[in-house]
């Protein structure tokens, strides 16, 4: 059968390969390529403010995707993702500062180091599940946070550490315009890797562990191996995301990687959709834009009676946290499958347009 450009009516496939393509149709592939090309043009017409937001969405999106592989695809909850994100940031800065490793190489190496740490904390995951695991990762969050504050040789202690700018062949990517491309390249690569992982035997094994781990074990899937592996992969993504963050800001402070940040990561994947690759990105965008929207609303309301009554200017930080909590709860109660599900429904509506029932 030749490649078809639109999804046919019905779902008839004769080979497994046809069921697991990256892009279901040629059109969707072309759209994805077009989207990346359009993103390439972004620095030309976006101002620094929007570029900054896009870069944030990029590196946080990579880390959120990692968490989604762990939580959404493997069903192992983790409340310590920000600590791994921070570990990646510090490792990359440490590698390039102490050993003179070029940043382009230090970022993947930081990913590998974070993987090692993630696997270490993933050992309990081999035995534990559900809420016990959640509590173990909570402990990991506090232990790593304590380690950051303590390990002067690694993180610079309370003073924080400087991270070199990203350089490649003598060209320094130290402006928002140029760093945008670095993040974009990493993002595209990491997202394609994740999509491919989910098409492979290992990816299907992860989903099987999530859906019914006893059945999965009976089918010959090694639970310990796949749970630890999932932890490793998720830490790798967190490490890469963290390293990109470090070299973007060129400074890493020990204070940023709190439990609130971890919860924000969880919020991203819940809003985007658990077990959806594109959902991770949508959720990240939502979470990054949420404070900006709130800021805009506050500015619009300034001077009005509401502003006077609530003293919005001082409260904005707390309102932001409240909004994060509220959004997580509302999504879980009303739209547990997240934005990705909503997007699918919109697509389905237009596919069947005049006769949507």
């Amino acid at each position, binding site marked *: 059968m030749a490649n078809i450009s639109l999804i046919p009516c019905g779902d008839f496939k004769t080979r497994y390969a046809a069921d697991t393509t990256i892009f279901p149709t040629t059109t969707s592939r072309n759209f994805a390529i077009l989207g990346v090309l359009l993103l390439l043009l972004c620095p030309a017409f976006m101002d620094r403010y929007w570029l900054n937001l896009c870069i944030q969405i990029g590196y946080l999106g990579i880390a959120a995707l990692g968490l989604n592989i762990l939580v959404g695809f493997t069903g192992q909850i983790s409340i310590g993702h920000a600590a791994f994100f921070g570990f990646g940031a510090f490792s990359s800065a440490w590698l390039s500062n102490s050993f003179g490793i070029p940043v382009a190489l230090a970022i993947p190496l930081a990913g590998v180091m974070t993987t090692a740490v993630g696997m270490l904390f993933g050992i309990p995951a081999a035995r534990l599940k*559900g*809420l016990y695991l959640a509590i*173990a990762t909570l402990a990991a969050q506090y232990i790593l946070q*304590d380690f950051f504050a303590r390990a002067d040789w690694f993180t610079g202690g309370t003073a924080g550490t400087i991270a070199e700018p990203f350089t490649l062949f003598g060209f320094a990517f130290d402006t928002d315009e140029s760093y945008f491309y670095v993040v974009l390249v990493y993002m595209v690569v990491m997202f394609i890797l994740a999509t491919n992982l989910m098409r492979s035997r290992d990816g299907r094994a992860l989903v099987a562990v999530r859906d019914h781990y006893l059945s999965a074990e009976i089918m010959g899937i090694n639970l310990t191996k796949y749970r630890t592996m999932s932890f490793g992969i998720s830490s790798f993504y967190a490490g890469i995301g963290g390293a990109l963050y470090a070299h973007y800001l060129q400074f890493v402070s020990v204070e940023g990687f709190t439990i609130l940040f971890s*919860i924000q990561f969880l919020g991203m994947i819940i809003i985007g959709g658990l077990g959806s690759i594109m959902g991770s990105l949508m959720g990240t965008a939502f979470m990054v834009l949420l404070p900006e929207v709130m800021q805009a609303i506050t500015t619009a309301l300034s001077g009005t009676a509401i502003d006077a009554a609530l003293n919005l200017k001082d409260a904005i930080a*707390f309102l932001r946290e409240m909004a*994060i*909590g509220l959004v997580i709860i509302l999504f*879980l*109660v009303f739209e547990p499958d997240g934005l990705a599900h909503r997007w699918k429904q919109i697509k389905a509506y237009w596919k069947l347009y005049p006769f949507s029932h």
Partner: protein
Amino acid sequence: MTLLFQLLVNGLIVGALYGVVAMSFVLIYKASRIVNFAQGEFLLIGAWTCWWLLTSWQLPFWIGFPITLAFMMVFGIVLQVVVLRPMIGEPIISVIMVTIGLSIFFQAMMKWMFGVFAKPFPTIFASPTVNILGLDVQTVYVMSLVISLLIMAGFGWFFKYSRMGLAMRATAFDQQVAQSLGISVRHMFAMSWAISAMVSAVAGVTVGVVNGVSSALSFFGIKVFPAVILGGLDSVAGAVLGGLIVGVLENLAHYLDSQWLNWGNMYEIAPFYVLIVILMIKPYGLFGTKDIERV
């Protein structure tokens, strides 16, 4: 040596409070199988409510405190009915995430309403310290220990003799059987949240009287995890013991640290190392029931 003894006494007192909070955590878990990450916020809300009644309304303690408890009871029921009831039957990740969402929502709300700085309670006792066995112990500490013991005894009585306590145990044991015996399971869920919120509020007010009220109170909700895991997630007695052990342990760690190690911050972090070790060796804790799964 006196320092060590003093720290041990402190450990027991704080540990008893951990035990109380852990008990109310276990109560919710036993009744409705929900892991409540917002337990610390119950302490926080209770303490702030009481503080607000005592300072803004100038109520005496013996009126303000019961009002706080009544408020927390309503709060617990409303929370269960509005937020947690729709989550029945959802996967465990969703339920955990809802309580995490509640936790950061209320924490931020309390910071917004009452500010980020610790505020002292109005004085409740005339004499600040009493002398027990040659040790100067603050009166509030004695009060907190007495309150903790009272709550524990109350829990013991409640689950052993009262009608509602027995109904709750039946619900925790088997919901279908309980329902067929005429127990309203929904009612029991709501009541377990109400009682848990009330008991946490008592602990919150006690800590508030000792240390002043601030958002640091919600850290109790996190410290509860080492205690309940140590004791076993579904054991009320285990929760008390776990709380005591964690309280003593963190003070011992602090002693070791201040005397020899000088690492700093051991007081905060030692329970989490213990937590990881327990999870590796004995994930179901000292008294928890082990899940047996059949296909």
